[in-house]
């Protein structure tokens, strides 16, 4: 122990003696350790342990998968189905049912839509997270006739009530009913990213609603998430629930595919999904970066060891064994790595703050606390120890291999050994350059794919598109005439807002929501389903989204006003279903409309125009991938006045930033009807009303983060490789100073010396 203290003390002294060397080595290690620590923190806290819930590592999501169409199926159920799973299973400790519950929150003469979660009374025990303030809800709160209660999310509490602890016991008007605030959940409790949590009784009567009715009185469908028993596997759990699901399929035949199987996946895998692979690749990239850092410092230490040949030989002469000498040299790299660890953690602390400003915050589960917590710090210490060995071992082994007598006789630098070391150092630099080129190549590929993605021709310009949903009060605006009357007044007013070029009504947000199904075209029988999207819109749709008329005509005011059964189709529909024929004047039926209530069924539409292709999206795994316009799904655009079903959306093409128009739009809607609510997009972590924001979060978020992260790694790696090359060249030149002097004395021109050294660098 005393010897180790001696070694450490000497190591500190050595570093103090060479502050420049120490600074470069510590900074180099700090970059490697810091970058590794940042990514480890993201992987550990965001992928491996993102949830603060009880038994989070065993939280399992139960889904039904269509055997005939892999990737299709459902993960949401009627409440009685989840209750049956909970009661009949043998592989779960407990199963929770919880569903999204958007509620209208009325306060201070405004109404807004907030995101709630309805969960069964076992929720608090299931999640195992005690409230920050007050109490959670239980069985007694879900019973019929019990006072209505609500639990607040921490962010919502801060935003709406400025973190007032006296809010407990106050009431909130939610969906026109007063609910008492009974508690506030802690910051990391972010289940489904909801603002509010409310109890739903297991025995609640099943609401009677249609497939496309998004009534907000309480959730219609629920996720089923269970805590797997310790001795159960995902396979046995799936088989266990499969037995129950077969019986449920008999009760709800419309909800289950003809041939299905139950799957069980870890909640972790479902939430982070394919991004896990990207993060692990990134982790590999920073491991390379760490290796570059270590080899750089190893090169520096090797140079130092060469300059200390005599000292090391003397220590050996005085009785230091090889292990003791290695320990002493490793102590020096340990001190360097320790200082690098501290600096790296500081770097990681600042870096994580920067990283959280990127899209990462919207990609990771909201519960994830990406920080320098204890496991991350242990990791930092661990890789510092690895760095100690990587940096110090090779120089130490080289140093103790020398001839004692020669070492003692030398003047300090053993030039022969130094040249041997310089060969080794050159090898290290070559390795560094190779690794940095590998990183640069990876970063180039990732950046190129991100660039390609952002330059997909969507057929529209999302930067200047304002988009929002319009929520109608329950029981009102259910008929087509009522909706026509509302939008007939709203759209002209939106058109007249300064900065707005055009406005349109539509079913849902552009690019992300349009019903899809088979079509029937007289004279065009087909066996396979002709999957076609259908949009219900106003005449301003084409101008707003920038679709060009190719043939025929667009929808007109009159078509909308009189709900004429006419349709404008996109180019792909015309080409795929009509080939070389002229589609104008032909009839087409969108079969998906037959499934929608408050909509005339078996309706045929006359094609009056063909427009350019635009948008459409396709899920690829768990990622949203935008299709280029030319490969977009066939699509038809009908007058929105044809049907009165459900909530709707608006879109506006603007000259000004879309977010700046929110208050204007709210005031217009408020002036038309106090009970109609403008709802911000809830996709991709978008906080504004801009389509570009939604795309940025949902589609470009992960690729953008990957591109930035890989490019940063590659940039750092390349910079470190350059530092390594510079230091090895400086060292080689310093070793050859004498010979360079001799050459100059013999008349060698400076250019020849320069050429000689550059040749050495090149080789």
């Amino acid at each position, binding site marked *: 122990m005393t010897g180790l203290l001696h070694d450490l003390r000497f190591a500190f002294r050595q570093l103090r003696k060479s502050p420049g060397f120490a600074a470069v080595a510590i900074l180099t290690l700090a970059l490697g350790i810091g970058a590794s620590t940042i990514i480890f923190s993201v992987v550990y806290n965001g992928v491996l342990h993102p949830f603060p819930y009880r038994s989070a590592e065993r939280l399992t999501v139960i889904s039904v998968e269509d055997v005939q169409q892999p990737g299709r199926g459902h993960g949401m159920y009627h409440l009685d189905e989840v209750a049956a799973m909970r009661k009949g299973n043998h592989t779960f400790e407990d199963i929770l049912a919880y569903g999204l519950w958007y509620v209208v929150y009325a306060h201070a003469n405004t109404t807004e839509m907030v995101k709630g979660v309805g969960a069964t009374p076992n929720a608090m025990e299931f999640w195992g997270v005690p409230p920050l303030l007050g109490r959670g809800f239980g069985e007694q709160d879900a019973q019929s006739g019990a006072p209505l209660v609500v639990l607040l999310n921490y962010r919502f509490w801060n935003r709406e009530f400025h973190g007032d602890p006296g809010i407990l016991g106050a009431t909130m008007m939610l969906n026109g009913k007063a609910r008492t605030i009974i508690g506030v959940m802690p910051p990391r409790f972010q289940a489904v990213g909801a603002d509010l949590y409310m109890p739903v009784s297991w025995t609640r009567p099943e609401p009677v609603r249609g497939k496309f009715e998004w009534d907000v009185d309480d959730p219609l469908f629920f996720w089923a998430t269970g805590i797997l028993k310790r001795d159960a596997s995902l396979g046995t759990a799936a088989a266990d629930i499969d037995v129950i699901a077969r019986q449920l399929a008999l009760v709800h035949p419309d909800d289950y595919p003809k041939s299905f199987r139950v799957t069980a996946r870890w909640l972790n895998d479902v939430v982070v999904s394919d991004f896990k692979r990207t993060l692990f690749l990134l982790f590999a990239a920073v491991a390379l970066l760490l290796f570059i850092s270590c080899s750089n410092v190893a090169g520096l230490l090797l140079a130092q060891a060469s300059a200390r040949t005599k000292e090391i030989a003397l220590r050996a002469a005085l*009785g*230091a064994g090889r*292990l003791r000498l290695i320990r002493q040299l490793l102590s020096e790299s340990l001190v360097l790595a320790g200082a690098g660890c501290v600096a790296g953690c500081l770097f990681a602390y600042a870096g994580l703050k920067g990283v959280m400003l990127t899209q990462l915050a919207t990609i990771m589960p909201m519960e994830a606390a990406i920080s320098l917590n204890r496991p991350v710090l242990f990791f930092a210490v661990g890789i510092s120890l690895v760095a100690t060995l990587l940096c110090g071992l090779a120089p130490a082994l080289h140093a103790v291999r020398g001839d004692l007598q020669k070492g003692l006789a030398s003047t300090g630098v053993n030039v022969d050994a130094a040249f041997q070391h310089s060969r080794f150092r050159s090898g290290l630099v070559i390795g560094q350059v190779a690794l940095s080129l590998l990183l640069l190549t990876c970063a180039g590929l990732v950046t190129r794919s991100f660039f390609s993605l952002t330059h997909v021709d969507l057929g529209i310009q999302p930067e200047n598109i304002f988009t929002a949903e319009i929520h109608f009060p329950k029981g009102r605006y259910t008929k087509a005439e009522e909706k026509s009357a509302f939008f007939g007044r709203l759209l002209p007013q939106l058109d007249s807002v300064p900065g707005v070029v055009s406005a349109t009504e539509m079913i849902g947000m552009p690019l992300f929501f349009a019903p899809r199904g088979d079509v029937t075209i007289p004279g065009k029988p087909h066996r396979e389903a002709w999957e076609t999207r259908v949009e219900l819109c106003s005449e301003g749709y084409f101008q707003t989204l920038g679709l060009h008329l190719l043939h025929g005509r667009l929808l007109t005011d009159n078509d909308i006003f009189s709900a004429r059964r006419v349709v404008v189709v996109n180019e792909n529909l015309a080409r795929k279903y009509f080939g070389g024929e002229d589609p104008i004047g032909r009839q087409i039926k969108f079969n998906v409309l037959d499934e929608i209530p408050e909509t005339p069924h078996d309706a045929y539409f006359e094609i009056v125009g063909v427009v350019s292709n635009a948008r459409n999206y396709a899920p690829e795994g768990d990622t949203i991938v935008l299709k280029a316009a030319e490969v977009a799904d066939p699509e038809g655009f009908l007058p929105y006045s044809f049907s009165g079903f459900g909530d709707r959306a608006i879109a506006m093409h603007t000259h000004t930033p879309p977010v700046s128009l929110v208050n204007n739009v709210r005031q217009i809607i408020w002036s038309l009807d106090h009970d109609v609510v403008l709802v911000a997009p809830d996709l991709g972590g978008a906080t504004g009303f801009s389509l570009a924001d939604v795309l940025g979060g949902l589609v470009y978020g992960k690729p953008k983060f990957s591109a930035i992260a890989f490019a940063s790694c590659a940039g750092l790696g390349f910079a470190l490789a350059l530092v390594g090359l510079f230091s090895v060249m400086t060292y080689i030149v310093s070793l050859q100073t004498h010979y360079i002097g001799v050459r100059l004395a013999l008349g060698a021109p400076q250019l020849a010396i320069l050429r000689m050294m550059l040749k050495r660098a090149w080789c």
Partner: protein
Amino acid sequence: MTEAGQPLIQIQDLTKVFYTDEIETHALSGVHLSINKGEYLAMSGPSGCGKSTLLSIIGLLDTPTNGRYFLNGKTVENLDFAERSRIRNQEIGFIFQSFNLIGDLTVYENVELPLTYRQKMPAADRKARVMEALERVGMAHRIRHYPSQLSGGQQQRVAVARALGGKPSILLADEPTGNLDSRNGEAVMELLQNLHREGATICMVTHDPRFARHAQREVHLFDGKVVAEEELKKLMQETNA
């Protein structure tokens, strides 16, 4: 420990050949040498005669190509690096021509250094040994100084203290006065004399006859062989002629 007058070091038919590319250099050829405990031996000879090579082998810094080497009655020519390190640390004290003090360590730490390589030596014992050694060479008042703050003579006295601190069986001095002026050189020789009087066994390499005369016995080397003084003179004359 060997009793006084008993051979501490016995070398029999020792050879050392250096191989450089395809050239063989015979540094030592059949050397026989015995050093008794308490003896003060000087090895002299012209440059390149093998003095330093022989001293390195005696000090276990190098290994012989052939021959036998007994230290304290035990054969040591084929020991591994770790065992040789242990023997160097416990049995041998080195005094080098260029002092070889470590510039980053204080006087105290330089003298303490070989003791820190000993397993399980209590810190108090170490301190006592260091201070005793420094007092013997008259440098106890400079313990916090660094080598660069000392004169050459003082540095060599510290080097002697470092060699003494481990209480070795033998002190090996390689041209201990080579880097000193005559006054400091004499002072170091006097110091070695005193140590010898106190019972130390010393083997010194020198090419300076003035200093060689301080020793009890002088051994002459020429072309890697031990020769008598008369023969050395004759060989030197032949070489010069």
